[in-house]
């Protein structure tokens, strides 16, 4: 997003191209005050801005890919992503609190190889949902991913099955599982654990879809609506419960946790 180094006092919104004061922008939770675009956040920033201060306890932090297929250039790209983000892979998980209530969370980081789901991301989602079921607490997963990580081949396709299987664990345990679609939530992630959450929230204008727009256009003969694969389109087509502004997200999540977790 940055056209200039992050230390600059100004930046340009890539939604509306307007120049913004960095301070205003940061204080507005990186939502453009002009066009309302919710700019992408790192997983750790998102955790900090969503859950009770200092409540996040990271788990499974040492999981990392071992390049099981010895896929061309994967090791190198993986190392670069690690260096760029200071993360081990695209997903961070653990427990946190919402207004004092414990929840199990997993948060995807799009800046790590497009948030793609390989064995590590899949395992962390699976452990998070199992953890929620075992602890009897709600699960909250933030999605931000282009889909499965093709560099792990069929192993990454199987993460779709594995993560979906663990959703069943939450259902059996009677703990709510809430997904938050952030920009973008696509393909193998959308077509697995993300879409079978009990409640699905989305950030405004987040891209949400099965295939890239180019592929969808090729595949279909129908005309493409202007808001195609935007979160708002997902709401209109019955796939998403609500669009929630970033600043209202903690309150909405808290309400869901309070109402849906209260029956036990």
């Amino acid at each position: 997003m940055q056209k200039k180094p992050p230390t600059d006092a100004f930046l340009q919104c890539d939604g509306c191209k307007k120049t913004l004061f960095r301070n205003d922008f940061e204080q507005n939770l990186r939502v453009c005050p002009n066009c309302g675009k919710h700019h992408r956040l790192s997983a750790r920033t998102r955790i900090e801005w969503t859950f009770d201060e200092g409540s996040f306890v990271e788990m499974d932090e040492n999981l990392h890919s071992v390049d099981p297929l010895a896929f061309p250039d994967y090791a190198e790209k993986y190392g670069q992503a690690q260096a760029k983000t200071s993360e081990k892979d695209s997903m961070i998980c653990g427990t946190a609190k919402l207004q004092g209530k414990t929840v199990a969370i997993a948060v995807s980081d799009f800046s790590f190889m497009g948030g793609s789901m390989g064995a590590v991301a899949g395992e962390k989602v699976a452990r998070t949902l199992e953890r929620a079921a075992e602890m009897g607490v709600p699960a909250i997963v933030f999605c931000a991913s282009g889909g499965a990580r093709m560099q792990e081949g069929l192993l990454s396709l199987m993460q779709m099955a594995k993560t979906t299987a663990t959703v069943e664990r939450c259902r059996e345990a009677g703990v709510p599982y809430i997904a938050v679609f952030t920009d973008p939530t696509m393909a193998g992630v959308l077509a697995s654990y993300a879409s079978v959450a009990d409640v699905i929230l989305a950030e405004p204008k987040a891209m949400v879809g099965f295939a890239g727009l180019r592929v969808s256009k090729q595949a279909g003969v129908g005309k493409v609506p202007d808001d195609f694969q935007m979160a708002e389109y997902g709401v209109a087509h019955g796939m998403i419960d609500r669009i929630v502004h970033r600043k209202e997200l903690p309150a909405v999540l808290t309400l869901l946790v309070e109402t849906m977790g209260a029956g036990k």
Partner: protein
Amino acid sequence: MAKSYKEWEQPLIDLEENIAKLRERARREIDPSKRIAIENLAVEYETRANHYIEVMYARLSPWEKVLVARADKRPYTQDYISGCFSDFLPLAGDRRCADDQAILGGVAKLNGKGVIVLGHQKGRNIQERQVRNFGYARPEGYRKATRLFEIAERFKMPVVTFVDTPGADAGVEAESRGISEAIAASMLKMFELTVPSVSVIIGEGGSGGAIGIACSSKVLILEHAIYSVIAPEGCASILWRAADRGADAAKALRLTAQSALEFGLVDGIIDEPKGGAHRDPIEAATSVREAIISALAGFEGKSGAEIKAERYAKFRAMGIFGE
């Protein structure tokens, strides 16, 4: 540039055409001794062809596997259903808005007992391909599958699915009715089953469209079928901006049946007739039938909870990572 199926198979086709011509010449030849000579030549050619087939199919490259798996002569779900089951009765509809003909399903009998059977169905001719959407299933297909899984669970019928799709329909219409949700919900339902389930990947096991109906207790794959997170052309196009490097991507993706078994992502490989399932569809179906029966036999005496837990444990363990 990766070879096409036609290019790759051309030498064999030439050989087979020559054999056919020789047979024809022999049939017309009046002179008995000449006829015998021509027939002998034909037999020799046949031996060569057989050897050629054996050699070429014994060491198919990943890309050649892709070509074979996609070959339009290959038996489709419908062929395996007729070959494996008696009294198949197709059931239609998602009870929502449509009947997707890219997924065929219904009740059938296996050894006299009721089973639910379904699978992706490609078309044999141009009209049928249109109707079947080339095996690209729509949301309605996965929702029909989900409904059939529910029937299986309700009446304690084992489930058999056949997987053969380039991928799920990614068009605007499919998106508008939630193709992603439909795939995910179908998988979730498969994990809820307390009856045993068997999936057979018979041709193309293409990404989300495939796994959507392949979350089974036992997943088997035909010897020359493929199973991949992404079509090799798509992978090449993303990685190298070169869709024609599909052969390289096919190799990198490890999309063969043999790789899938090696990584523990399928439970077994079903051998194909010499030269591929399309050279003897009946033998292929017989092998598939035996493999299904044997896979289901393994669940006899197990409780529903055990069956479900076993399936869960199997998929839960998939993934290789360091910690």
